[in-house]
Every structure is written in C-alpha cells, then in structure tokens.
C-alpha cells in the first residue's frame, strides 16, 4: 500500500527521518486565538486586538512597538506585512507600508516580530495580502510561522472560496484562519466564512477601507449578531475603530475590538507622512494603547 512504499524500497531508518518533513495528519491543536478569546470572555472581557505594520518605520523600531502594544494591554497583535498595493487600506496604513518598504522591510524578518509578540505574552497574528504569502510559498510560510510561535493569518483579499491551499496548510500546522465579513455580506456568505474560519471572524464595521472615523454606525452590532447566527464562535470588529469610546461601545457586544490606523498614527507626525522620533512615538503609542485597553477591557462593566 502506498504507506509502505517508502519503507520497502528504502531502509526503515529513513522512515523516522521522513516524519518531520510531512506533519502527521491534521494537528487538531486548539486554536491559540480562540483560546485567548475564551479566557477573556470567561472574565467578561472582550479582547483588544492591535495592528501595526511590521518593519514600520524600520525593523528595530517596529519590534519595540509590538512589545509596547502587548505591555500596555493588547491581547492579540495583528502584525501587518507591508505590501506595494494594499487595496483594503486607507491613507494612514498605506503611508506606513510605504515607509516600511522604503526602509528595506523583508518578509523573512517578520518571524522575529512574531517571536517578540509571543514572548511578551501576546497572541501573534499576521495580516497579509495574499500575494506575499503565495510568493513565499503557502506551506513554507505556515511552517516558518508556526515554528516562530504564530497563531494565525488574517487575509483581507483572500476569500474562503480561493483559500484551498491555505486551509490545507493551516490545518496541518494548527494555524488560525481569519476571514472577513462586511455589513452587506449575505447570510450565505456569512455561513461560508464562518464555516471556514478558525480563531475568529473579522467583521468590518462598515463598507470601506481601514482608517479612523469619528462615528461608528450601529451596523457592526447587527453584523456580529448575524455572523454568530451563521455559526461563528467568535466575532471581532475592526475598521474605523479608533477612540476609547468607540472601543468600549464595540467591546460591549463583540468578542474583540480591532484597532489599526489609530495606533499607526501614533508613530507618524502631523503630516502623516513622516515618522516621529522613536522615544516620542513609543511613548505616544504606549499612552494610546493604555487608554484603549482600559476602555475595551472595561467595556462590559
């Protein structure tokens, strides 16, 4: 039979050598992200999920920034991979991605950020446009990411329908798959996403790209509810959440609150195109993180 083949043609010793190159079936390991969300939920708290692009403004600075996030209350870190054509991002994250790329950001280094976050006690997720992972090699990425202690991947331009290879690789390595839903997603689409997601489902608070907004409509609450009904265990809300007030409001009904641009903003100066000096940037980041964390973690009283 097919499994005996390697042994009856080569020596039995080769078998053990071969084992670690192909994982033993699906791992069925518990989801790291869902576990953390559940722990928080048990304490009647939503999770604070914070986003920053890796390598922004440069590698060392960004590693410190990730550490700062976790130290000041972020539970789950969304490590962004800078991309030349980020169609789901607004001006702030576009600018940050550009700065990172101009400063020589390389994917191979992102695993250091993953380790940094894990070591600091955060759950490391990576947010990446699909071509970067595709180019790196889906299986190879899953292996390296998992080895670094990564929890899962948020894929803004990969829908479950196109995610076959990623679903396979993530099952093998026990990684989470975070797909997005948006306010106009049909019940059918919500079910497809909920069925294929692992960890949580990312509910976009509104139609559109990332960026800070002064107000948040009531639609995310409805979307969270519909997504749960479609079968999702955990639903976190992002896009447009930037103030402690918004965080508190969203945290009252969502399993997690995702903040991106507002954090990235702390490292940029008034022009939005240049980076603040490190000391000031990290201090501002710490303060904003702290304020958001307090509001989000206290959202349910």
């Amino acid at each position, binding site marked *: *039979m*097919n*499994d*005996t*083949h*390697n*042994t*009856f*043609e080569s020596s*039995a010793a080769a*078998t053990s050598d*071969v084992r670690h*190159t*192909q994982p*033993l*079936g*699906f791992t*069925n390991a518990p989801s790291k992200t869902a576990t953390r969300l559940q722990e928080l939920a048990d304490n009647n708290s939503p999770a604070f999920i914070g986003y920053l692009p890796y390598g922004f403004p440069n590698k060392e600075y960004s590693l410190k920034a990730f550490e700062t996030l976790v130290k000041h209350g972020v539970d789950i870190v969304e490590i962004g991979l800078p*991309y*030349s*054509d980020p*169609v*789901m991002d*607004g*001006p702030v994250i*576009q600018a940050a991605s550009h700065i990172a*790329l101009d400063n020589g950001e390389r*994917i191979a280094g992102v695993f250091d950020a993953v380790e940094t976050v894990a070591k600091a006690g955060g759950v490391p997720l990576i947010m990446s446009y*699909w*071509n*970067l992972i*595709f*180019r790196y090699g889906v*299986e190879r990425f899953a292996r390296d990411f998992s080895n670094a202690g990564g929890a899962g991947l948020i894929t*803004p*331009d*990969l*829908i479950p*329908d*196109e995610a*076959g*290879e990623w*679903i*396979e*690789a993530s*099952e*093998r390595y026990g990684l989470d798959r975070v*797909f*997005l*839903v*948006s306010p*106009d*997603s*049909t019940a059918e*689409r919500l079910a497809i*996403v909920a069925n294929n997601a692992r960890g949580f489902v990312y509910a*976009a608070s509104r*139609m*559109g*790209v990332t960026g800070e907004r002064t107000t948040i409509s009531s639609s995310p609450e409805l979307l969270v509810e519909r997504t749960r009904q479609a079968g999702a265990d955990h639903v976190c809300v992002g896009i447009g959440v930037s103030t402690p007030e918004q965080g508190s409001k969203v945290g009252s009904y969502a399993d997690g609150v995702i903040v991106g641009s507002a954090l990235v903003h702390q490292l940029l100066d008034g022009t939005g195109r240049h980076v603040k000096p490190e000391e000031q940037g990290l201090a501002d980041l710490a303060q904003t993180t702290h304020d958001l964390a307090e509001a989000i973690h206290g959202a349910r009283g």
Partner: protein
Amino acid sequence: MSVLDELVAGALADQRERETKLSLTQLQQQVRNMTSTPLDATRWLKQPDCIPIIAEIKRASPSKGHLADIDDPAALASQYQSGGASAISVLTERHRFLGSFDDLDAVRQAVQIPVLNKDFIVTPYQIWEARAHGADVVLLIVAALDDAKLRELLDLAHSLGLNALVETHTREEIDRAIAAGARIIGINARNLKDLSVDVTKYKALAANLPENVIRVAESGVFGIKELEMYARAGADAVLVGEGVATASDHELAVKRLVEGGKVVKESESQPLSTHDGPYFGQYGGRYVPEALVHALDELESVYRQAKADPEFHQEFARLCKQYVGRPSSLTEAPRFAKLISDKVSAPVRVFLKREDLNHTGAHKINNALGQGLLVKRMGKHRVIAETGAGQHGVATATVCALLGLKCRIYMGQFDARRQALNVARMRMLGAEVVEVTQGTRILKDAINEALRDWVTNVEDTHYLLGTVAGPHPFPTMVRDFQKIIGEEAKEQLHDDYGIEHPDAVIACVGGGSNAIGIMNAFLDDDRVRLYAYEAGGNGPESGDHAIRLTEGTGQLGVFQGAKSYLLENAEGQTLDTYSISAGLDYASVGPEHAWLKDIGRVHYDYATDKEAMSAFLDLSRSEGIIPALESSHAVAGAYKAAQDLIDKGVENPVLVVNISGRGDKDVATAGKWFGFLTDEQSKALDANGAHGNSVDGE
C-alpha cells in the same frame, strides 16, 4: 525481509487462520448465496466534470504510526459519503493498519457507494472473502505478486463482478498491470525523500496509458493542493487517507476536495472560445475583499441574464452600429505587406482590423458600452473606472454621458500630468477625474484607488474595469463584449476578400482585451496561428519593460483580483513597469492569456520600444494609417509572425493585424522620438502636458 514482505507474510498467516474456521468451499458457498451484486466501481471513478474521491478509513500506517482512533467506521464512512466521496476504502490489515473485517462489514452497511477492500491480497481466498464481506473493489499490489498470480487474482476478481485497484510504483509495474488486464491502476508517485507529491514523476508514470484504464493517484494526497496537482496532471480519481481521516470535520474535508476537483475540470473545459471563468486553467478567480463578493455575484448574475436576453443583444448591436460605427473596416494593406514580404523574402498578405475607426478612437468603447448597459440593468447610477493614459477613461466618460450616468475616473497623477488633454476631454464629457497620488502614481495605483472606492460605495456604484483582467466575471464579460472584433474580421475576410481563414491573427497585449477580442473567434480553429506581443520597453535585460509572459520575467502571482502572470520581486511586491505605450504598461495580464500561454494556443512574444516605433512609421508611411503606440507593437509583431509562418512552411500567409486604436493621441511622443519637433516645440508640448500617448489599460 522488507516491510512489504513482512506485511504480506502477516496477512497470509491471518488468512490461513481464518481459513481453518471457514474453508474456501464454505466461503464460496456463502458468496453464491449472496443476493446482492457488486457495484461497478469504474462507473464511479471516472467522471467528465469532477475528480472522484476514494476516502479511506485509516487508523494507522507503518510510515506514520497512529493517525486516528475511529471508533465508529460506519459513521465516518457516512460522513465521507455525505461529503461527496465516490468510494470508501477500508483497510482490513490488522497488524500495522489496525483494520478489520468488522470495519468492512460496518462500512458496507453504512454506504451505497463502492467499497474498496485494502489488504495485502495474495491468495484467491482473500478475493472471495472481500466479496463475501460486500466489497466492490479489491486492492492488488503489483510489487507483491508475480505475473501469473496477478493475472489469476485479477481474473478471479473480475469473474466475481469485482474491480481491482492495481497498485503500481514504477513504469515496469504499470506495464505488468496493463498486460494482466488491469482496468483501474493506482499510481504511487510519492517522492521517497520527503513523501511529497512528485507530479513530474506521476506524469511520467501515467503517460501513454490506454484510454480505457482509470488512473487513480494513490499517494500523498493530503488536501486540495495535492488534489489539484494530480488533477491537472491528468489523474481520473484520487485516493485520500489521512487528509480526510484526521480532519476535524470529515464531511467538509471531503467536500473541499470534491469542489476542488470540479474547479479543475471546469477550468480546463473546451471549446476555448466559450470557456467561461472564474478559472482559466489555474488562473483567474476572485482574489478580492469579501466586501466585493456581493457586487461581483450581482454583476455575474445580471450579466448572465443580459446574455440570455435578446433585447440586450439588440440594444448592444444597435449602439455598436449607430453610435460606435461598427462594423469597423477590415482594410487590406498591400504596401505594408510589401515591406514585410521584402523582409522575409516571401509573399505575405496583410489585413488590418480597424478598431481605430471606432468612436473615441479605440476598441475600448465596445466594452464600456456593454458594461454601461449592464449598469442600467443593475439600477446603479454611479460608475467609476481607472485609466492609464486616458483612452478607457474617455470611452467610459463617453458612455456615461450617453446613458446619463455619474462618472468618476481614477488616474495616476503621473499619467494625468502627461495626459492633460485627455483629462480635459473626460471633464468635457462630464466626468470627474481624480488624480491618484498614492504609490507609483500610474495605472496600477489608479486601479487600487478605484477598488478602494468600490469597496466603500459598492451599493450604488459599478466599477467599469477596462480590460480582461481583475476578478471574475470581468475577464469573461469583457472578452464577450470585445469578441465582436474577431467575429467581424472573420466574416469580412470571407465575404469581402473571399478568404476562408487567415493563417495568423496578431495583436498587442497589455491587460489583453483587444487581443482576446480579435482572437476569440479563431481560438478553436487550428488552422489559425495566434500571436500576441507585449511591451518590450528597453528589452528584457534592461528591467524596463512589461513582459509578463515570456519565460523568466513574469511569475505566477495574485494581483488586483486574479491569479495570473505578474512582474514582482522576490518578496512578492509588484515591480514597476515601463513602456513607451502606457496602455501596455501594466504589471500583470488577463488570466485567460496566462492559460492560453500555458496550453500553447497563443504564441506570446514582445516588441521593444524601438521595434514598435519603427513599425509605427512603416504603417503610417506605407498605408496612411497612424496606429496607436499600443497597436504599433502588433504591427511590429507582424514582421516576426510572418517570419515564423514562413519558417513553418506556410506559403503565401494571410495575416490579420488588430489596429486596436488610432495614433493621433501619440503624435507628440512620436514627433519627439523621430525628431520631427524642434526642441522648443517639444518643450512647449511638455509644458502643456500634451505629451500624451497611448490607449491605456488595454
């Protein structure tokens, strides 16, 4: 003693022991008393529209040890069946695979699809036994049997109405299996070093098998990735063990594989001219934010309705004729043909398809009009579009004016500056033109910004994409709106010139809409060779080009909604492109072109700036037709295609070249290139921003 020898010895000992309790005669009597007949598995294992899955009840294996407990094999088999499995494989070997005949009995009771008994079968008794337990298929391992034994067991199985999955590892074993009369051959093409799937090895092994033999890929299929690899390599069915047995949701795991197989089959369906997305081979798809899925679904559904509605076709045809000025002429170009004939030292005839004569000066209007009509059907009232140098923007603005739609055009700041006249033209037509200051400020950045707008305003907005790229259904839909070019050319060549078919059809390819448009009508006619020319810029070595399809430049990637060939760096970041013609200056290419390249239907090559400019002048002076810089790449290609035809022994070849747009817009660029302008005139044009060129977006 090898592991196989050991397993066979163990299985044989077990069988002998069972035989002491139930003799062969008794067993045979049992079988004769059976009322049910076995299922003919060959009817399940080869399907025109899917890749049948044989899902295995697998607890353990010698190479991997323990895999899954499987307390209730019947329930697992039912889940496999619900997921769409075509057959269930049950292991009855007990020492290393922890299987049993109880498993087989339980599974047989639970499912209505064929059941395969997997064991180390070397005696007739085991075949009778499999039949007695209700199996429909038995496994025979060629490596464990000599020729006589293999034939004996195979004949016995067939005589009992069973099929045999005959497992092979080498070409020699395959030949032995065929000689013995195997109908279903299992091919084990695992790379022995790391157990990964070796498709090259599979292809080599599976080559030249008789048509009526079913090829089952039997090893290393874990999930969708391996399934696709095998399916594309021509496997009829696949056997999957741990990939389904160890999944947390067995039904879903099988379902994913079944769906994946369907996608592969659909993506390779023929005929070429009516092949619809989402997939063209492995290319295409919908790599978009979830927020756009609803809009794409809606667009697809409205388009499908329109396609089936005669009124839509009538309206489109009426506007094509009365507004665009179709059909565009097919002009014979004898003086230009003479230039080519002299160059290749053989007589050549050349016909030009005159899309340059359309309203707005290019083929872009065909698609803009078609989508504009769809916008009305969808009840949306706002249209956005990208444009590089302005031609698609102008076509879209024109159609929006015609149909009373609100229009916004995104244009990279860099392009908008050098195309100030086209910007003014769009504004005159009532469109709002937004200069994009993000990224590299060219066409791809305009597309990014249009996508961001669409994600935000999708409820009332249609994105009128200008080429056969982007997410499904754009590549299919835009192709359908442009295929009129080739249909007309075919008819005109026949009716006006009495020529049955051209020997070659030639076009330039940026995104690829004019090329698909003229080629579609000829895709299924093997007598017609198809040639497409990319923007070679300063040549492939210079790095300043937009050559995506020539070996070694473009990579397989995912960009702006589709999987296709892409110019990217080692990190997956999009590379800057360059061409004198902005319309060909795009980092990726429509997915159908990527597929047509892979299957060898279209020959892709490139023309450099120099070659295109030289051809531009040749056509202008020999025929009095000034082609767009984009189209000039096709004109330059005509020389190369003619040479290729002559080399291939085609006599008196007839060439049809698509003149996708007119060159008026490129006069400043060309004037500067050829030195027809004084430095002062050139500077003045620069200052005016009139240095425009190009039919964008292509």
